[in-house]
């Protein structure tokens, strides 16, 4: 206190400013400055915030950021983007839903639009306009964004899951391209493992990879966790049993035991380290080779997930953009989403992704990016075969819970560890009944 007084009194003498004047000046400057900030933020420009995850391909995020800046310039609406890690996104979204405060637009993963339907604005108008302009939505887009008859989120993209395989090792065995059916893949897997190049499909806690391989496998053999009503558990069927027997054989003849420990990044590492010859993944491995292993890029190609007796299926994680009901700038948020999905912006964004992300409007099936490299063809075709957990029922909270509890993956994993088919189905059925029995 004393020191301050001395200082100010010396100010008094030196520059002829009294303490009162000094305080008044400081206060008024602060007020003027903060009023200016207030003007700029509150009145001058509308702000729309977007919460999303940093893409594996950072170039896609750079384009997104650049587009947000451009949008601010053209439309005078300031866009701020917050990136949180993929694993934190559900937590952040849950926090926003619960507290009723947070970003205006949120990137929803998987069936997020269904989980949070009651907190999301109806965006049917945007969805319908886009459909009219861009040749309509794919079926998977409707599964992702529509809850009942209302669009609760605008499908943004899916990350196509395709077979990644080594051309050179297949050629050594006389294969020109990857087999089209699961049965033929089994024959190939055995030959590859005998040559010291096992295949590998995650059987551990890889929320992406493990579920993305095993749901389509189940469906391709005609099995399903529930009936079309989305309520009756239907896992106990001869079709499920066939899928399990197949998986057990595939593991025994074609894989190493490492797959039980795999998380989402493990198969990428194993493929890059040339420890496996075939896996199911996004094209991110191929992309990463550009920098780290160009020689492997030459001998790596992609194929659609194989076909089974009941057809070909894929579960590739979809992303959609929803607007929270608590947002005060819903109109502006809608306009921004619409703008992002228009060809000029969307093509640029999808283009730098090099097959990592596929658009869900039919128009983008013919995007120039697909012609850049013939190895992207499988990614281009994958959205057609895509379904969501809970199929043939609608996506639901029950299906989501079954997935995070790894009911389906564990059913297969137990069989691969030696449990009988009937027993592992029984466990899965009990778990599913417990989950689907909830309100």
């Amino acid at each position, binding site marked *: 206190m004393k020191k301050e007084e001395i200082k100010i009194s010396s100010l008094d003498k030196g520059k002829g400013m009294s303490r009162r004047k000094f305080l008044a000046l400081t206060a008024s400057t602060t007020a003027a400055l903060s009023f200016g900030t207030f003007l700029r933020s509150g009145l001058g420009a509308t702000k729309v915030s977007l919460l999303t995850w940093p893409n594996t391909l950072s170039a896609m995020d750079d384009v997104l950021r650049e587009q947000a800046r451009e949008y601010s310039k053209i439309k005078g609406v300031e866009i701020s983007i917050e990136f949180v890690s993929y694993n934190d996104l*559900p*937590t952040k979204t*849950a926090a926003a*839903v*619960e507290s009723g405060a947070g970003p205006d637009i949120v990137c929803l993963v998987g069936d997020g639009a269904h*989980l*949070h339907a*009651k*907190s999301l604005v109806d965006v049917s108008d945007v969805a319908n306009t886009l459909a009219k302009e861009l040749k309509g939505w794919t079926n998977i887009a409707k599964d992702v964004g529509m809850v009942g008859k209302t669009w609760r989120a605008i499908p943004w993209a899916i990350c196509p899951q395709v077979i990644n395989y080594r051309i050179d090792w297949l050629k050594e065995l006389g294969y020109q391209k990857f087999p089209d059916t699961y049965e033929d893949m089994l024959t190939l897997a055995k030959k590859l493992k005998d040559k010291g190049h096992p295949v590998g499909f995650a*059987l*551990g*806690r890889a*929320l992406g990879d493990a579920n993305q391989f095993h749901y389509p496998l189940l469906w391709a053999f005609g099995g399903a966790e529930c009936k079309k009503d989305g309520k009756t558990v239907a896992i106990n069927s001869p079709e499920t049993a066939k899928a399990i027997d197949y998986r057990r054989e595939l593991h025994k003849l074609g894989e190493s*035991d*490492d*797959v*039980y*420990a*795999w*998380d989402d990044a*493990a198969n990428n*590492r*194993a493929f890059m*380290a040339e*420890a496996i010859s075939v896996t199911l993944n996004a094209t991110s491995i191929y992309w990463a080779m550009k920098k780290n292993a160009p020689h492997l890029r030459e001998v790596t190609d992609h194929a659609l997930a194989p076909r089974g007796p009941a057809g070909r299926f894929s579960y590739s994680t979809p992303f959609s953009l929803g607007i929270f009901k608590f947002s005060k700038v819903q109109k502006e948020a809608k306009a921004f989403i619409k703008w992002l999905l228009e060809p000029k912006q969307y093509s640029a964004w999808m283009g730098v992704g090099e097959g990592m992300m596929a658009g869900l409007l039919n128009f983008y099936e013919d995007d120039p990016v697909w012609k850049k490299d013939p190895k992207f063809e499988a990614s281009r075709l994958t959205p057609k075969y895509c379904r969501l957990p809970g199929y043939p029922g609608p996506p639901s*909270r029950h299906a*989501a*819970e079954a997935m*995070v*509890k*790894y009911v389906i993956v*564990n059913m297969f*994993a*137990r069989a691969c*560890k030696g449990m009988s088919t009937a027993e592992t189905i029984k*466990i899965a059925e*009990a*778990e599913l009944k*417990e989950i689907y029995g*909830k*309100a």
Partner: protein
Amino acid sequence: MKAFVAQSGKKAKKQLALSFLKSEALTGYFLISPALFLLLVLLAYPFFLALYISCSDRVLGEPGKFILLGNFFKLFRDTYFRQTVWNSFVYTLTTVSLKLVLGMALALLLNQDFPCRNIIRGALLLPWIVPTSLSVLTWLWMFDSLFSVINYILQSLGIISKKIPWLGDPFWAMVSVIIVNTWRGLPFFAVSILAGLMAIPKELYEAAEVDGALAVRKFWHVTLPLLQPVIAVVVLFSTIWTFADFQIVYILTHGGPLNATQIFATMAYDVALVAGRIGEGAAISLFLFPALLVVIILILRYLRQE
């Protein structure tokens, strides 16, 4: 005279009121009120809110109904949850016992005279200081199915012929999380017990020696009884922390494989935040609360008696 009495009566009343205001008790309450307020806002409110949520069938974004203990009864019947309870007990009891035994040994060692004693005592705390998520990521690499440095060393030394599937096998996955938890919690045990050891008067040992006691008996009859309060507190804290552990399991195994390492916190996270059933998630995380409360009360009462 009467007037005087009345006046002095008033004065006395006034004085009484004044002295009450000035009394230490009131000042005391006044002074702790900010802290009390913080406790209420930061601890009591979230706790009771969690208690309330656990008694409702609430899902994300929807208010939900009050269903009393419905969630808890449902959990009792759930095989998945029963496995989680079993895992949590195995995980907690094993790690706490290991940490206690090893921590005691380490503390006894560090209590000896040797060169650079203080530096080594300080370095001991490192696993405790490094952010858990960072150190666990390093462990993740050490347990990697392809590049495990532990397997590499064991194989090079000829101890094992086949790779150990650290995170890929239900049994080994549990062993892995137990190793990491023990590694991380050991310094806390060692340092706390060391502090307790240093507080034991030397005379007691001298007296025991005079009576002809050997090292084991000295430990059994002098060291251990005097360390009991420290051990009680350390075990209590560690038990609570380990039951509530999240990071180690989440990063290393995420509860897998085959749910072999799923524990309360990781299951609550999956159910509440990823599947959106926050009522049930809260019930899972509060499931052990009554049991832990009893343990805490017993241990605290024991400490007070001591």
